[in-house]
Structures are given as structure tokens and as C-alpha cells.
């Protein structure tokens, strides 16, 4: 079991024939992801990486029955691509692109929600169900199958955490990189219940960072609803106020969104919070072996 995607999930790629799209689509295919086609306007009818190319998402969905789209289009076209996917009946759009304007994402997400389409990202590594389905840019070999679910705002910290978990002799069910932009799709609060309901997942790792209050919302949700153990790390304890730390959303504005307040809220909710990112794997092993 897993959440959201598995080996049977039919995936298309928007921005399929571009440089990034091609490279990562091929990596996904090699991993075993069921990529059934792609979309690049004016290239419909061609074949790419052994898969059919369509002019529109609607064509792709009609012909392949795809339910998930991986989006690699340039930042200026992200909103258009997301709305096109929603309009065509895609159920989940995984938006990898970095640098989409916030205003665009505001409208795109509202439309996606209206159409009942879930989104992950933008500016994220994607989602991976270990040894089944990789939709994104993460190095697949790090994610060995196991019983730990992973939700993270950061790409490389996702890899770091998975690597540590695997080194402890454990593994991952599904890992979701939710992205560090000010407006993102699925967040902790929506993903936590999915992991709670997944029979294979026995513990959940959540990695957050400074900025916004998604982690605080997660803490409130965990307190009331999550029975499985949650291990958390919040990046940016040493980040100065008012400075953007790489991610567009990673900024402490005024006194809101600090790592400290997030860690305290999570601890109060019964979450196992580690202070150093080097201790994530150890803490997971310790909690699961109890």
C-alpha cells in the first residue's frame, strides 16, 4: 500500500519533449512509473521516449486514461498548464517547475480546487511510492520500500531523511515533497490523514521550515486526529528574521513563522521533534522499535 500513487497509476507529462521534461520522464520510466504519454502543443501525433505525444491534456486523457500529470513547463506557463489539467479531468497534478508567480498559483489552485483536482508543488521534487512509482526529480534509488511515510517542504532534506531511515534498516512507503512556495497544493494537513489510513505506514516523518503556518496547522490536526507516531524536523532555527532563505516561502515575517514556535506547537501535539536534521533516522528507529 501507499498513498496517492502506485505502480498502476497512469501518468502523463506536460512539457514532455522539453529538456527537463525529457530527462526526468526517462528517469521515471526507468524507475518503473507507468508513463502513458505526454503533452507538447504542436507535437501531437509524434512519439517521444516510446510514448505518444498529444497537443492537449484533454487529448492525452481521452486516449490514455491518465489520472495524474507531472508538470515541467516553464514558470510563465505553469498556471495555464495546471488549469488545463484540471479542466481535462486530471485527478492529481505534480508541479515540479520552480519560479511560478504567486498570483498565477493563487488562481490556478482555486480553479484546481473547484474542479476537484489535487495538486502537489510547485517548486518541489514530486512524489514517490518506493519501488513502484516515481513522479518527480528525486533520485529513486534512495527510496527503499518500508513503513515510513514522508512529507517535506524541502527536496534535498527529503533525500537526506529517506537515506537516514534506510540506513537504520527501515524504508519508505510514499514520500511527498510539497514544495516551499507561499502557495502550495497538498500540505501536511491533507497528507497526514492519508498516511494515517494507509495500513503499511507505521510512522510519519514531517519536515518543515520557517515561514507561513502550515506546520502549526499540522500540529493542531495531529493532536486531534493522528494516532501513528510523527517525527518532525523544522529547518531554519538559525535563520535571521526578514531574510528569504532560498525558498520563496521561507521567510520569518515580523515574529511569525519561526522554527521555534513551530517546534513548540508540534511538541505540544505529541510529535517527536528533533533539533538536528542528522537525528531524523535515529529518532524514527527509536520510535518504531519501542
Amino acid at each position, binding site marked *: 500500500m501507499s498513498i496517492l500513487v502506485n505502480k498502476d497509476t497512469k501518468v502523463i507529462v506536460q512539457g514532455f519533449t522539453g529538456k527537463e521534461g525529457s530527462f526526468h520522464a526517462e528517469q521515471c520510466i526507468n524507475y518503473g512509473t507507468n508513463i502513458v504519454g505526454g503533452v507538447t502543443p504542436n507535437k501531437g501525433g509524434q512519439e517521444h521516449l516510446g510514448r505518444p505525444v498529444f497537443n492537449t491534456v484533454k487529448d492525452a486523457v481521452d486516449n490514455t486514461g491518465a489520472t495524474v500529470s507531472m508538470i515541467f513547463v516553464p514558470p510563465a506557463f505553469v498556471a495555464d498548464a495546471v488549469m488545463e489539467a484540471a479542466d481535462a479531468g486530471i485527478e492529481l497534478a505534480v508541479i515540479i517547475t520552480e519560479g511560478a*508567480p504567486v498570483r498565477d498559483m493563487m488562481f490556478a489552485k482555486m480553479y484546481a480546487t473547484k474542479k476537484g483536482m489535487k495538486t502537489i508543488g510547485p517548486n518541489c521534487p514530486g512524489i514517490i511510492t518506493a519501488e513502484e512509482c516515481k513522479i518527480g526529480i528525486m533520485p529513486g534509488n534512495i527510496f527503499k520500500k518500508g513503513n515510513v511515510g514522508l512529507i517535506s517542504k524541502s527536496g534535498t532534506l527529503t533525500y537526506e531523511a529517506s537515506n537516514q531511515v534506510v540506513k537504520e534498516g527501515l524504508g519508505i512507503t510514499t514520500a511527498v515533497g510539497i514544495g516551499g512556495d507561499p502557495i502550495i497544493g497538498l500540505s501536511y494537513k491533507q497528507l497526514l490523514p492519508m498516511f494515517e489510513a494507509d495500513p503499511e505506514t507505521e510512522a510519519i516523518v514531517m519536515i518543515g521550515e520557517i515561514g507561513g503556518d502550515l506546520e502549526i496547522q499540522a500540529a493542531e490536526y495531529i493532536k486531534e486526529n493522528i494516532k501513528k507516531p510523527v517525527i518532525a524536523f523544522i529547518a531554519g532555527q538559525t535563520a535571521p528574521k526578514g531574510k528569504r532563505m532560498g525558498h520563496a516561502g521561507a521567510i520569518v515575517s515580523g515574529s511569525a513563522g519561526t522554527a521555534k514556535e513551530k517546534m513548540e506547537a508540534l511538541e505540544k501535539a505529541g510529535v517527536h521533534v528533533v533539533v538536528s536534521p542528522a537525528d531524523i533516522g535515529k529518532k524514527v528507529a527509536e520510535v518504531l522499535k519501542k
Partner: protein
Amino acid sequence: MNVHEYQAKQIFQEYGVPTPRGIVANTPDEAVKAAEELGGNIWVVKAQIHAGGRGLGGGVKLAKSLDEVKQLASEILGMTLVTHQTGPEGKLVQKVYIEEGADIKDELYLGIVLDRAKEMPVIMASTEGGMEIEKVAEETPEKIIKVAVDPTIGFQGFHGRELVFGLGITDKNEQKKFIDFASKLFKIYMDKDVELIEINPLIKTGEGEFLALDGKMGFDDSALYRHPEIEAMRDISEEDPDEREAAKYGLSYVALDGEIGCMVNGAGLAMGTMDAINYMGGTPANFLDVGGKANAETVAKGFEIILKNPKVKAIFVNIFGGIVRCDRIANGILEATKMVDVNVPVIVRLDGTNAEEAAEILKNAQIKNVIPAEDLADGAAKAVAAAKGEL
């Protein structure tokens, strides 16, 4: 990207948001000319820097004669202004804005930012204008009225009514004027991909007019490509030169005041590395995300920028190789050490794809100052020890 007050007011004026009249000046003589052109007998000389709290820092002064305009402008131009937002080093004032005096009856606050939880813009208004709004939010949060506006319907009459009734504006004519003001400001926010717009204070004059006495704006960097008119307002002298230099090479850099330089791939891991150093009892000298392309050139540039800081006593290179294999990165680091003279210990931790081959490469190369580390914990511990001279 942020702009100066005078630039924000230019945008306000284009949209019909009322402001006092003003002219920007680079020299005391220009300041006098500006005052003459504006006319009247009272002017405000305002330092133009990208930081709030200018008045308290001595950067905003009232002049009652042209001689006084000249004297104040010469005092303010060239001064290093320290406010609660500039940090202790302050900011050099290179421009002043000469503005006509205004008849202030009431001071209000009006701002628009993205409400990340609601995922839509929120208009914030308060009767406590002229104060630090963070302080108001903390001490008397009930005095801030928040009205979220769904961008798919835009600013409607009811949003305006919530604002004026919340602020206690009872005069019908004044209500109309304030709603018009807020509606235009919202249009600017949406049209220009604004990240933050803040007017503090927004004043009501003796005649019941509303005027933007101050103006602060920040824009979404990701959307600047479609706003060349905003990009043209960029003042490079307001930006940190090292951050700018780093950005040219696709590196994201923020200076801190510790002793251990950090070079990491990915923003989250970069923050996490700083936290790990702190946890081990050390202090990070910077945040540096080399992004997805950790090659010889970017690593060399990273070393160069980190080593400019004389406080740096050790460097921790923490790379998690994913799609980019670690053996390649190891070779990149070795090449970079040939390009830049690295005179402090460099702790290198490479993990992920082909990590063992990478460790072998680093071990065999035997480069002076390069110390391999096994994992994040080991790397952080070694970096802290090296900075203390204990390694």
C-alpha cells in the same frame, strides 16, 4: 524586489491613489529646486532607503524655509541611517524626497499582503497609523481589521464597507473616499504582482481627504519578467553585493555572523546544515544553496564568496547527490580547490548516489585542508571542531 518610497508613490499616482506632491533629489541644490517647484512654505525632507523607521532614525525632517531644506538635505544625504529594520550597520542615504507639508488630522494604517493560510490577498487597516504595525498586532490585535479579498471576484463594495465601518469612519463622503482609495490600492496589488504594499501612515487631512503619506512596496521576484517598468526601478546599491554576485551564478546566499562557512545543495538542507552546526555548538557564517548544479565552477564561486568573510574559520560542504552523482561532485570540489586558494579547513560530506566512489576520490587526492566526513552529524561535528582549531 523592493522600491523606494518615491517610486511607490509614482505607482500610486498612476492609479489615482492620492499622495502629497513630491520630487526626488540627489543633491542639496536639487532639493532646494524641488522645494521651489513644489511651492508653499513647509516641506518634508525624507531619506530614501529600503527600510522602515526612518523618522525615528533622523531621516525625516520638517523644513520651514528653503535654507532649511538645503541644510537638512545636506545633513541627510550621505548619512548612514540606522533604523530597527537596517541592522546596526545602517544604510547610506543617496537620495532624498522633498514633499509638500500636509495637514495631518488622523493617522491610519493600510496594507495588503498575501494571506498564506487563506491563499488570497488580505487588506489590513488600523486606526493606529504611524506606529510600528508589528507592535500593534502583538499588543492590540483587535485594532487591526483584516479583510480577505477573493481575487476571482476582486474588490467589491462590501469589502470597502467592512473596512470603513471597522475603522469607525462615519462621514459618508469620507467613507466613499476611503473605499475608493482602498479599491485602487488593491488594483495595484493585483496588476503589479505585489508581494507587500504598506502605507503607514495614511493620513486624513483637516479637509477630510485621505493621502498616502508613506509608501512601501515589495514585488514578487518570479513575476518581474512581466513588469519591466518595475524592474527598471531596481536600486542595486540597496542590495547586498555578495548576495547579488552569488545570484549571478545561480547561488542563493545570505550572510550571517558566525564562523563556519556552509555550502549546501537545496534550500532546506542548507538551513538544516546551519541548524546542525548550531546544535553541535558552532555558528554558521552563511546560508548558501548551490542549487542542482554543484559543479567545479559553482563550487569555486561559492568558496570565493564564503572566503571574502574574514570571520570564516572553516567551511562545511554538505552535498546530497541525487541525480547528480557524488563522484562527479567530488571531482568538481577538487577542481574548485585548484581554482580558489582555500586557506581554511574544508569539511566535505558527500552522500547519496555513488557516495563511496566519491569518498575514495577525496581520500586519494590528499588535498591540503580537505577533510572528508561520513555523514551530516560527522560533518557538522568536524566543522565545529575545525573552527575551534581542534581538528
